[in-house]
């Protein structure tokens, strides 16, 4: 049976090749001894570049990790940022980036026919591994997008904290939709709507470049708007960074609650000391929390339901579905001038019922994955609400490790780092006090 099918396949392949290579005019027999010119098409050594990419990625991340955890200094990060923008950004044109690799990995998970290149997977997993070990050192300056925003950042105007709390949900929703469209093989929306890639490539869609420029101008005045409010990979990394093994500290000394670091942080990741002095009763807070926990499954269910019903609309972004809708439209009201998609479909001998089968499969996939995406959206919103209902008291300035991008700005602001007091002296001081 297998032999038969391969035989059939080879016949088909042959027939196909025969159909296109029309030898209308015979090969000329040259009498003048004409030689066919040699055609060579350049094949750059991509493999080598990929190896360099990976080495550089690991090297730069290790360097950042060493700088922020061991040395507590920001200088190397600036240099790493410049290298990253120059190499990963302008030289390598920002492809493949870790942010986009989420989609490849998601697709590889659900679609066994999709073979993911090793380099793409490494780009995906290495920053996660580093985040798990040292926090978001990738974001610090290795990611060309973060580095670019970091380099142009001059002032740091603070945004309303309650608004940023809402905006920080966006990366999660973006992540969910990106995965939804990736696993249904519709499109890679992260790559499609990448605001900085046009800048790195010195050309591209005008709207996106404009968006990128607006983001860059915004990042002059406030820290990393893209990283905080858009980047889905940052959202993913924040999960690992939160539980990282070695954590970034503002200072190895005792905090004196001077508030300087809080003001220096571009991403609002340093939380001030807080004692619970709200007038709200504890019982009320607990009640609310319990209510949210009860509502969580309901919210998950509701949003899953909504997304499930939105799936036919969502599926319209898929190429086959688009083509099929065009076909149905054309068959219903035939136009003389047909779009080139249909022209190609007809001229390649496409069968509408065959397409319909494929479209049905796509739609079924969409129905399933939209439901799951909806459940996750509900979960994200619910967890955000729960997180905002939990009271935590702090005695001193603390880094919120999921938000911290390891930029190292706080180090130089901390007076304790500037005037390092030897440990024994400090102890002596304390004992004196007592």
């Amino acid at each position: 049976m297998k032999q038969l099918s391969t035989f059939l396949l080879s016949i088909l392949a042959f027939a196909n090749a025969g159909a296109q290579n029309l030898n209308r005019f015979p090969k000329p027999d040259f009498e003048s001894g004409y030689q066919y010119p040699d055609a060579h098409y350049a094949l750059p050594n991509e493999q080598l570049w990929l190896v360099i990419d990976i080495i550089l990625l690991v090297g730069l991340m290790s360097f950042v990790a060493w700088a922020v955890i061991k040395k507590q200094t920001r200088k190397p990060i600036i240099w790493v940022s410049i290298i990253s923008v120059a190499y990963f950004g302008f030289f390598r044109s920002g492809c493949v980036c870790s942010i986009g690799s989420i989609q490849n990995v998601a697709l590889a998970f659900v679609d066994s026919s999709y073979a993911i290149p090793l380099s793409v997977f490494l780009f995906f997993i290495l920053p996660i591994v580093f985040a798990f070990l040292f926090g978001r050192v990738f974001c610090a300056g290795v990611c060309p997008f973060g580095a670019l925003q970091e380099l142009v950042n001059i002032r740091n105007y603070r945004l309303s904290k309650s608004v940023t709390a809402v905006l920080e949900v966006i990366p999660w929703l973006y992540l969910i939709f990106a995965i939804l469209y990736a696993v249904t093989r519709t499109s890679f929306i992260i790559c499609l709507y990448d605001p900085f890639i046009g800048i790195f490539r010195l050309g591209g869609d005008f709207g996106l470049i404009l968006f990128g420029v607006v983001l860059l101008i915004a990042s002059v005045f406030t820290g990393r708007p893209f990283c905080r409010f858009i980047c889905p990979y940052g959202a993913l990394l924040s999960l690992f960074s939160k539980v990282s093994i070695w954590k970034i500290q503002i200072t190895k000394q005792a905090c004196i609650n001077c508030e300087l670091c809080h003001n220096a942080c571009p991403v609002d990741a340093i939380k001030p000391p807080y004692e619970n002095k709200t007038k709200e009763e504890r019982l009320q807070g607990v009640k609310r929390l319990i209510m949210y926990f009860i509502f969580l499954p309901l919210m998950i269910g509701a949003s899953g339901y909504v997304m499930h019903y939105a799936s036919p609309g969502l599926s319209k972004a898929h190429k086959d579905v688009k083509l099929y809708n065009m076909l149905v439209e054309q068959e219903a009201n035939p136009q003389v001038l047909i779009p080139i998609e249909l022209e190609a479909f007809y001229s390649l001998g496409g069968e509408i019922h065959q397409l319909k089968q494929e479209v049905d499969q796509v739609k079924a996939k969409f129905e399933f994955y939209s439901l799951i995406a909806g459940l996750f959206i509900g979960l994200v919103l619910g967890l955000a609400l729960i997180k905002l209902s939990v009271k935590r008291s702090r005695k001193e300035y603390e880094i919120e490790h999921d938000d911290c991008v390891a930029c190292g700005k706080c180090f130089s602001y901390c007076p304790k780092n500037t005037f390092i007091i030897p440990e024994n002296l400090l102890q002596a001081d304390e004992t004196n006090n007592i």
Partner: protein
Amino acid sequence: MAMKEDKKIKSPIERRKFIKMLGTTVAGGSILATSGLMINKFVDGEADHYWQIDPQKCTHCGRCETHCVLSMSAVKCIHANKICGYCDLCGGYYRSNVKDLNTAAENLMCPTGAIQRKFVEDPYFEYTIDEDLCNGCAKCVKGCTAFGNGSLYLQIKRDLCTDCNECEIAKVCPSDAISRVPLAQAYKLKD
């Protein structure tokens, strides 16, 4: 004693520590699990890295010129000399309904003048493409496929292509002619 220990665990600090440990374990575990799952994929063989056009499927719609992310498309016309008929009246070189077979602008198909021709011997002419001028508009490909041997065809130049994660042209290609290929077949050449 047991009661005391219990209380200790329930104190806020301990609980947070416990949750953190749990989180660390889950995170580490998920990294390992993902890597483990993916390793199977790499064992299977080389993945397809590079975008390339299948000339058999190409319908010369002209979108390669306009939809590439680069300002000058990475798609260029390639000429397969070995299947070319070396015609005088070349469907890719001349516009249809051409009156005189000379190099005057009104007779030529290529909008950028990227096709050059050289007399070989009567009645044969050799055609070559000046790649710096070619913008991948596929006008000549259309002409050659319709009236000739189809020796002019489009390919993505590997040295120009940035290998986007998702090729913008592939997204709009009406005949799905652009797909990822392994390095060994980085070009789908006709000759």
